[in-house]
């Protein structure tokens, strides 16, 4: 469960101060599928960085699964990212000239889990790409690359999947396929936070949070289960 309370974040760009998040409070329950929607520059990427423990807020408090993450050291944050959060990026961020399987196994390199054999392959199975395990990203289509990235996000079995414009670089059909995977994962219990500027993509989620100029301007349930 994610709980942001009065979170603010400002950046200095040259001489001007950009208020990326302005006193945002938001609660995302375990097992929900939330879309965070806003135009570019609205602060949704900053939101993703803070929720993903890649950045710290200047003010406010962030509780993840009931504990304040502001108290964690940067090593503890890295550990938490490794164990509790799966990232999916717009540009996939797969290592070139490295097989799909090795890419999927990358989080395991930094994991403390004692037995990691077979986890990479079973993650690839979950996205239907076990037969592409030895292919490099260059040999895969965009949709397949994003599925490899999702398998990588799943390999450590985190509760939370954070996806930043995951369909932004894909054609319509591949995008739908990816969103279908997210829905399936959500149905199996994962918390999905999807960041997008695309209203149609956001429509796949159960709840839509609109951000403009660093503030939450609307928060609505779009689909009741």
């Amino acid at each position, binding site marked *: 469960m994610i709980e942001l309370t009065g979170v603010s974040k400002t950046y200095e760009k040259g001489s001007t101060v950009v208020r990326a998040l302005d006193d945002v409070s938001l609660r995302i329950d375990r097992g929900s599928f939330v879309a965070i929607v806003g135009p570019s520059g609205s602060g949704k990427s900053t939101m993703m*960085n803070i929720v*993903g423990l*890649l*950045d710290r807020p200047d003010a406010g408090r962030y509780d993840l699964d009931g504990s304040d993450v502001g108290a964690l050291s*940067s*090593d503890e944050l*890295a*550990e938490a*990212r*490794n*164990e509790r959060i799966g*990232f999916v*990026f717009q540009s996939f*961020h797969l*290592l*070139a*000239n*490295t097989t799909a399987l*090795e890419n999927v196994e*990358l*989080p395991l*390199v*930094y*994991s403390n889990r004692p037995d990691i054999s077979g986890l990479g392959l079973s993650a690839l199975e979950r996205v239907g790409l076990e037969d592409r395990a030895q292919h490099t990203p260059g040999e895969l289509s965009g949709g397949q690359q994003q599925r490899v990235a999702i398998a*990588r996000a799943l390999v*450590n079995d985190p509760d939370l999947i954070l996806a930043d414009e995951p369909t932004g670089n894909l054609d319509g059909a591949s995008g739908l396929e990816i969103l279908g995977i997210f829905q399936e994962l959500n149905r199996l219990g994962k918390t999905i936070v999807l960041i997008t500027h695309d209203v149609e993509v956001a429509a796949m989620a159960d709840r839509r949070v609109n951000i403009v100029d660093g503030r939450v301007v609307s928060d609505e349930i779009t689909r009741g289960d």
Partner: protein
Amino acid sequence: MVRSAVGSMRRHKMRTFLMILGTLVGVTALTVVVAYGQGTQNAVLDNFNRMFGGSTIMLMAGGGGRMGGPHADGPATTLTLEDLAAIGAEIPEVIASDPIMMLGEFDVVYEGETKPIMITGHSESQEIVWDRGATSGSYFGHEDVERSARVAVVGERLVTEIFGGMDPVGESIRIANVPFEVIGVLDLMGIDPHGVDMDREIQVPVTTAMRRLSNVDYIFSAKLSVAASANLDDVVFRIADVLRPRHALGPQEPNDFQMITPVQVEGMIESGNRVFTLFLPLVAAISILAGGIVVANLMLMSVSERRAEIGLRKALGAKRRDISAQFLLESTAVTLFGGLLALGLAYVVLLAMGGVSTVARTMGETDNAEAAEVALGLPWEVALLGVAASLAVGLLAGVAPARRAAALDPVETLR
């Protein structure tokens, strides 16, 4: 972790190649120079030990100057055969003494052909003191020295050079127009520390050298064999005590002779070899430094090229130390590989250099290069030094890039 380092080396072949090259040059230079210097120094020391080894004292006429070097006031004329006899009589620890007359080159004529050859006068004690006898025929004896016999023992190389390869024993030669009979061929000896090829000399009785070839009544120097149990420094003092009254030296006057022991000689060689033990390794160290700078720069380049990868790894849970370990491991693996290649290359270079005369080149001019061949190899401690140097280059060159990589902010790099 290791696999990902190897993977990264494979992905960036050109950069890896350049980093290996940077290490290769420096480490090869270092190992070759150190092994070469060591081999040469050992060869020179071996040579000295053969010449002056064991319990011996070199006694030279003239004070002040070093090792019989040229003296401003002409040759020292004070050391005589009688001095040696007195030393032998008064100091029982001196087992044998060989007087030496280094006469320089004389015209030697055999069957109408003239060649300039080094002529040296010795006594029959030479056989004991230098442990050098005759391979063919025999060395001259006490009687030959007593009566200034016109007999000669020739160096091995002269057998081919003068006598066309045939056994010269019994042949007649003329040295400075004085007829001599060849009675033996000397054991092989090699090049002396001054670069003189001792297998290209002719030895004659010292008295013959004094009276028939140069008409003097003094000797230049002598090599004394001392009992192994004796204290060399003590014997040196006692020899001075014998010689000073014989030469009528007052208490304020300096010695008109000097003595050198093997211990002093080794010190001289070591200081003479500074070019190998100090200067060249310094040059090699600079080339390693240059290689290290190349590696460090390529690693920094690698860090900025791979910002996205670093950011991704951090997002996926890599801690700062994971990232710096990865880059240190990469730079060290590359330089270690380069260092191992360098050892192979150094070995080949040293083998090729083994054929070159190193002693001759360090100690003086000679046209008999092959006589001074030095066995050059790659001693294990030098190889170890090479490995340590490449590891050090990898670690030191990797520190700054690794720190920079570890400090990267994933928020910035993942955009």
